[in-house]
C-alpha cells in the first residue's frame, strides 16, 4: 500500500501560519546568504555578528535603526496599499526624491523666512504633492493606455535621480559649499526637531505611524478599501461589481506616491538639512520598502514591525561597509534572497500538505 503526498488549498491562511512562515523564510534566507558569503570567502557568522551588533547592539545603533525605519515605514505603508490593489508601484525611490526636491524648494526658495510652524507643514504638504505627481504620471498611463507600470515607475526613478543630481551640480548648488554637490543648508526653522541627542526626527516618525494606522482602517473599514481589496483579489469580480478600476489605480498611486514623497521630506529636513546627490539622500529606501511591504503581507500595521527590521538591516549593511569594506549593494543581496523566500513561503502557506493512503478499492 502506497502513500501519496497531495497539496490541498487552504481556505484561509491564519495569522499564526503567516507569522511562522515569515520567520521560517527569514531564517532560510539568512542561511542561503550565509552560504553566499562563505563561497566568496567571508566568514558569515562574523558578518552577521557585526551587522547585528551594529544595528541593535548599542543605544547609538538602535537610534540609527530608528532613523532608517522612518522612510521605510512611510514609503512601505503606501506600497502595501498599492500592491494590495495589484498596482505595481516600483518607483517609490523616485517619488521619495521628488518629495525631497519639493521640500528643498519650499525651505530655500519659496518661503525661507517663514516660521517653523508654517514652514514644516508646508514642506510635508509640498513633498506629498510632488511624490503624488511623480506617481500619477505612470498611473495615468496605466489607466488610460494600459502601459506596464513596473517599467514606467522605474524609469521615473532614474529620471528623478538625474534631476536631483542636475539640481545639486547645477542651479541649486550652494554658494557656501566649496564645490561640493550640495544645496545651501536649510534655515533653522526648516530643520525638524530631533529626539534627544539622536538623529531621530520624531515628527516624521509620528506621521509615518499615523499613516500606517489610517491606511489600515481605510483598507479594512471603508467602501474605498473594499474596492481596493476586491480589485486585488479578483479583478474580474471587481469589474462585475461595477468597481471603477481607473479610480482605484489613481487613488492608490496618489497615496503611495505622496507618502513616499513625505519620506523624502523627512530625509532632507530631518537628516541632511540640504539637498544632496540622489544616492546621498536615499540609501535605496524606496526599493527596500518593497520588501518591507511584502514581508508584512501588505498589512500596513505589520509594516511598522518589518520597517524596523529592515532599518536594522540597512544599519548593519553600513557597518559592513565600514568594517569589512563590503559594497553598498550587499543590502540588495539580502533584499533579493529574502524576497524569494517570502514569495515561495506565501505560495506554500496557501496549501497544506496532506498525506493519505492510496485508495485500494479502485
Amino acid at each position, binding site marked *: 500500500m502506497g502513500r501519496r503526498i497531495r497539496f490541498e488549498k487552504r481556505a484561509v491562511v491564519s495569522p499564526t501560519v503567516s507569522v511562522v512562515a515569515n520567520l521560517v523564510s527569514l531564517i532560510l534566507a539568512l542561511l542561503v546568504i550565509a552560504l553566499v558569503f562563505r563561497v566568496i570567502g567571508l566568514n558569515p557568522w562574523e558578518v552577521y555578528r557585526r551587522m547585528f551588533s551594529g544595528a541593535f547592539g548599542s543605544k547609538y545603533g538602535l537610534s540609527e535603526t530608528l532613523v532608517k525605519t522612518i522612510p521605510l515605514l512611510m514609503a512601505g505603508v503606501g506600497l502595501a496599499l498599492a500592491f494590495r490593489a495589484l498596482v505595481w508601484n516600483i518607483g517609490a525611490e523616485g517619488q521619495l526624491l521628488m518629495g525631497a526636491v519639493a521640500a528643498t524648494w519650499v525651505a530655500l526658495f519659496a518661503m525661507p523666512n517663514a516660521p517653523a510652524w508654517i514652514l514644516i507643514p508646508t514642506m510635508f504638504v509640498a513633498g506629498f504633492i510632488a511624490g503624488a505627481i511623480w506617481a500619477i504620471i505612470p498611473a495615468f498611463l496605466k489607466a488610460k493606455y*494600459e502601459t506596464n507600470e513596473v*517599467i514606467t515607475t522605474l524609469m521615473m526613478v532614474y529620471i528623478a535621480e*538625474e*534631476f536631483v543630481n542636475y539640481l545639486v551640480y547645477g542651479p541649486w548648488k550652494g554658494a557656501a559649499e566649496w564645490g561640493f554637490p550640495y544645496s545651501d543648508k536649510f534655515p533653522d526653522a526648516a530643520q525638524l526637531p530631533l529626539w534627544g541627542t539622536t538623529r531621530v526626527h520624531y515628527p516624521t516618525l509620528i506621521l509615518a505611524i499615523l499613516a500606517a494606522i489610517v491606511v489600515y482602517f481605510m483598507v479594512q473599514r471603508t467602501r474605498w478599501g473594499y474596492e481596493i481589496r476586491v480589485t486585488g483579489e479578483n479583478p474580474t469580480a471587481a469589474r462585475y461589481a461595477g468597481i471603477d478600476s481607473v479610480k482605484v489605480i489613481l487613488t492608490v498611486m496618489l497615496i503611495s506616491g505622496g507618502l513616499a514623497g513625505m519620506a523624502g521630506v523627512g530625509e532632507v529636513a530631518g537628516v541632511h538639512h540640504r539637498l544632496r546627490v540622489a544616492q546621498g539622500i536615499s540609501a535605496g529606501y524606496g526599493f527596500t520598502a518593497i520588501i518591507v511591504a511584502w514581508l508584512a503581507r501588505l498589512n500596513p500595521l505589520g509594516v511598522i514591525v518589518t520597517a524596523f527590521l529592515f532599518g536594522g538591516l540597512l544599519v548593519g549593511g553600513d557597518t559592513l561597509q565600514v568594517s569589512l569594506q563590503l559594497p553598498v*549593494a550587499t543590502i540588495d*543581496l539580502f*533584499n533579493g534572497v529574502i*524576497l*524569494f523566500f517570502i514569495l*515561495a513561503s506565501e505560495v506554500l502557506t496557501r496549501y497544506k500538505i496532506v498525506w493519505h493512503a492510496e485508495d485500494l478499492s479502485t
Partner: protein
Amino acid sequence: MDVHVFWTALIAAIPAGTPYLFATLGEIYAERSGILNLGVEGMMIMGAVTAFGTTLSTGNPWLGVLAAAIVGGLMASIHAFISITLRANQTVSGLALTMFGLGLSGLIGRRYIGTPLPARLPRWHIPVLGDIPLLGPLFFQHDPLVYLSLLLVLVMGFILFYTRPGITIRSVGESPATADAMGVNVFLVRYVCTIIGGMLAGLGGAYLSVVYTPAWIEGMTAGAGWIAIALTIFALWSPFRALLGAYLFGGVKVLQYRLQPLGISPNLLNMLPFVLTIVVLLAATGEVQRKRIGMPAALGIPYERGEK
C-alpha cells in the same frame, strides 16, 4: 549635420545597442512562452561580473562570454522554479532576481574595480565586404559578438515564426491549456525559454564588461535590463523588430556622449534613454491595442494543470 559625423555616430550605435539586443532577444523568448521575467537587469549584471572575472583569471575573453551565458541561465532557472513550479507571482520574483543580481555582483566584483582587462575580443574585419566604403565600417568591421547577435536575430526569428518548435513556444504562451491537451509539455517549454532568456541576458552583460566598456563598474548595467524589457514590448515580441529598437537606444547612448561637449548638463542627457523608454512603451502599447497582436495572451499567468 556633417555626413561623416552622422555616419560615425551610426557605426557607434551598433556596439552601443548590442547589449540591449542580446537581452531583448532573450526576453522575447521567455515572454513568448508566457513567462514575464523582470530580472533581466540582475541577470545582465551577473553576466557582466562573471565575464569580467573569468576573463581576468583565464586570460580568455571567450571563456568569459561562455561563463556569463551559463550564469545568466542559472539565474533564470531560479525565476523559472519560482514562477513555473511554485506558480508564484512573476512580477515579484523578477524584482527579487534583479536585487539578488545587483547585490551578488557587487560583492563578487568588489576586487575587480579599477582592474584592467588582460585580453579583449578581436575585431573581425571581414575581407572584401569590410573594404566597401561607408557600408564596410557600418556592417563588416565589428567584434564577433555583434555578428553573433545579428545571427541570433535571424535564427531566433526564423525558429519562432517558421518552424514547429516556434509554433509550440507561441502556443504555450497563448493558450497553455490547449497546448497541454495536444501533448506539449508546457512546463518544459517554459523552463527552456526562460533559461535561454537568461543566457542571452548574461551575454548582453558580458558584452558590456569585456567588449564595450571594457571594465567592471558596480551597477554598470545602469537600467539596460529594464530598457530591454521595454524593448520587448516595442518589438511586439518579434526578434526582427528587436534589432530596430536596440540600435535606436544604442543611437541615443552615442548621442549622449556627442552632445556633452556642447555644454548640456550630463545629468539631463542621462535622462534621455529613460524618457525615451516611456515614450517607446507608450507607442508600442498603443500599437498592440490597435492591431490586437503581439502580446502573448497567457503572459505572466501561471499554468496549473487541471484534473484529467
